C-alpha cells in the first residue's frame, strides 16, 4: 500500500519553496511529483518593458546564490546584439569576478548540503565562514555584498581597487589550504559517506537524455563544460580542464564541486598573472543604446549550477523577447528518476546534491 506525503512548500531542506508529493512504499520512494511555481514572478515579461541596461537587477535575482553569473550572461547577450567589444583587461576582470562568484556559490553548496545530510552544522558554519571571505572580496571590488549590478556594456562599472590583487591572492592561499580540511572532515565522516556514496545514481545515458548540465552532468561522466566546449573570454588560453567523474551518485556531485573550486583558484591565480594594465571600466548606462547590429543572439555561459543560455531577440531600445535556459529547472527534472527506490531520508541529500535554487527554477 502506498502512503502519500506532502513535503513543503515550506520546509528547511527544499532550498526555497518547493512542494514535493512523495508516494512511499513502506520507507521506499515510489514516485515524486514536484510542484513548482511558488516563486514565479515573470522576469521574461518584465525585461520586455525595460531598457537594455535596466534589466541586470532582475537578472541577478534569478540565481541569487550566484547572481553575477546570470547578470554577466545577459550583459554578454546585449553586447553581442549591439556589437560592443570588451577590452582585454575587462575580460580578465570578468573572469576573476565570475570565478570568485563560483567559489562563493560552491561554498554555499557545501554548507547547505551538510545541513541537509542530517544536521552536520559544522559544515554549514565552515562553508558560510569561508563564503563570507569571498563576499568581502566581491564587496571590495563592486561595493555590494550580494547583488552587484557591476556589469556594464564593454566592461565593468569600475576597475579593481588598489590592493585587490593581493587580497584575492591571500584569500586564495587560505582557501586552498581550507579545502583539505573540508575533504578530511566530510569524507572521513561515516554518516556523510553513507548518505552520499551510491545514493541517487544517474547514469551517463540518462544524464544526456534528461539534458542536465553542470556538475550533475559532469558527475555522470560526460565531459561537457561551456568554458571548455564553447569557450568565452580567455578560458581557452588558460588551459582550463573540465572536471569529470563517472559514478554519477551524490558523492560524485559533491566531489565535482570540490574539484571545481581547486580549478577556480587556479584560474584566478593565472588570470591575475596574465591580466594586462589598463582600464576595465565599461560604458556608462545611457538612456539611448546604440543601434542593434544582430537581431537574434544566443549566448551560453557556465554558471555554477550548469549552463545558462540567453536567447535575445533585440528590439529598438528594449529586448523584444528574452528567453532563458536556466540550469536548475532542468536539473530538478531528474529528481524523480534518481530518487526512486531510495529511502525517504535520502531524498534530502539527493535534492541537496542537485543544488537547486528555486528562484532559478520558477523565474
Amino acid at each position, binding site marked *: 500500500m502506498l502512503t502519500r506525503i506532502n513535503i513543503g512548500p*515550506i520546509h528547511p531542506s527544499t532550498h526555497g*519553496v518547493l512542494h514535493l508529493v512523495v508516494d512511499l512504499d513502506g520507507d521506499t520512494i515510489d514516485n515524486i511529483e514536484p510542484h513548482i511555481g511558488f516563486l514565479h514572478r515573470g522576469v521574461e515579461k518584465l525585461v520586455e518593458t525595460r531598457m537594455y541596461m535596466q534589466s541586470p537587477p532582475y537578472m541577478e535575482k534569478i540565481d541569487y546564490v550566484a547572481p553575477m553569473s546570470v547578470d554577466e550572461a545577459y550583459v554578454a547577450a546585449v553586447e553581442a546584439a549591439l556589437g560592443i567589444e570588451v577590452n582585454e583587461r575587462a575580460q580578465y576582470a570578468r573572469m576573476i569576478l565570475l570565478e570568485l562568484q563560483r567559489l562563493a556559490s560552491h561554498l554555499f553548496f557545501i554548507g547547505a548540503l551538510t545541513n541537509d545530510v542530517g544536521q552536520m552544522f559544522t559544515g554549514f558554519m565552515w562553508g558560510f565562514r569561508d563564503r563570507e571571505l569571498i563576499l568581502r572580496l566581491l564587496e571590495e571590488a563592486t561595493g555590494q555584498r550580494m547583488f552587484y549590478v557591476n556589469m556594464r556594456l564593454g566592461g565593468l562599472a569600475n576597475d579593481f581597487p588598489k590592493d585587490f590583487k593581493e587580497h584575492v591572492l591571500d584569500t586564495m592561499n587560505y582557501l586552498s589550504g581550507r579545502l583539505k580540511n573540508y575533504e578530511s572532515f566530510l569524507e572521513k565522516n561515516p554518516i556523510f559517506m553513507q548518505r552520499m556514496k551510491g545514493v541517487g545514481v544517474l547514469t551517463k545515458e540518462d544524464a544526456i537524455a534528461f539534458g542536465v548540465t553542470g556538475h550533475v552532468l559532469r558527475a555522470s561522466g560526460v565531459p561537457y563544460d561551456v568554458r571548455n566546449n564553447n569557450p568565452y573570454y580567455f578560458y581557452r588560453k588558460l588551459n582550463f580542464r573540465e572536471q569529470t567523474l563517472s559514478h554519477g551518485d551524490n558523492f560524485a556531485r559533491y566531489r565535482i564541486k570540490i574539484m571545481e573550486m581547486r580549478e577556480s583558484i587556479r584560474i584566478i591565480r593565472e588570470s591575475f598573472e596574465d591580466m594586462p594594465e589598463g582600464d576595465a571600466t565599461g560604458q556608462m548606462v545611457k538612456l539611448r543604446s546604440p543601434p542593434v547590429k544582430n537581431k537574434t543572439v544566443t549566448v551560453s555561459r557556465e554558471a555554477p549550477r550548469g549552463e545558462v543560455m540567453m536567447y535575445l531577440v533585440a528590439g529598438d531600445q528594449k529586448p523584444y523577447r528574452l528567453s532563458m535556459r536556466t540550469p536548475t529547472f532542468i536539473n530538478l527534472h531528474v529528481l524523480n528518476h534518481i530518487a526512486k527506490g531510495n529511502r525517504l531520508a535520502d531524498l534530502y541529500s539527493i535534492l541537496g546534491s542537485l543544488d537547486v535554487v528555486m528562484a532559478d527554477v520558477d523565474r
Partner: protein
Amino acid sequence: MTADHDNAKKEMDRLTAGSVPGKEIKPNVAFAKLSDLMKLTSKGIVEWSRVNSLWPLQFGLACCAIELMSFGSASTDAERKGFLLFRATPRQCDVMLVAGWVTKSMIPEIKRMYEQMASPKYVIAFGECATCGGPWWESYNIIKGIDQVLPVDVYVVGCPPRPENLFSALMKLQKKIGGDIEG
C-alpha cells in the same frame, strides 16, 4: 511584593543611616540585584524572558533567505542577544521572518504558517520585496508587501539587507516587546 518592597526600604534605610547628609551612598551589590529584581517583577518577569528568547522561524522564500542564513552562521553571533535557534516548525517560534517576495500562490501558505504560531507572535518583513514589493512592483504575480496579509512589527529595507540590519531589527523588536527592559 509589598513585603519585598518594605524589606528593600528597610535595607536602604539601614545603609544610609550612618552616612553624611547630602552624600549619596551607592548600595552594595546584593542590594543592586534586589532592586533589579524589583524592577523586573514590576515590569513582569514573563516579558523579560520573552524579550530574551526570541526564536525565529526558519522560513526563507528567496534571496533574502541567503542573508538570513548568513545571519545564522558564524560571522554574526546572534545568540548573544537572545535570538536563539532557527526552528523549522512554526509551533516553536515567536518571530516570523518573511524574507523574499510573496507570490499569489504563497499567500495561503504564509497565512497558515502565521496561524500555526503560538501567541504572542511577531512578524518582521525582511527586505524590499516583503516590505513593499520592491523590484517586482510591476509583476503580475507578486503582492506588494507582506503587510497586505499579515500584521508586520518591524520593516527592514535593503535589497538584500545586510545581516547586521536584521540584528538591529530584532533589537528594535525587543524594544517593542519589552520597553526599557534590558537583555
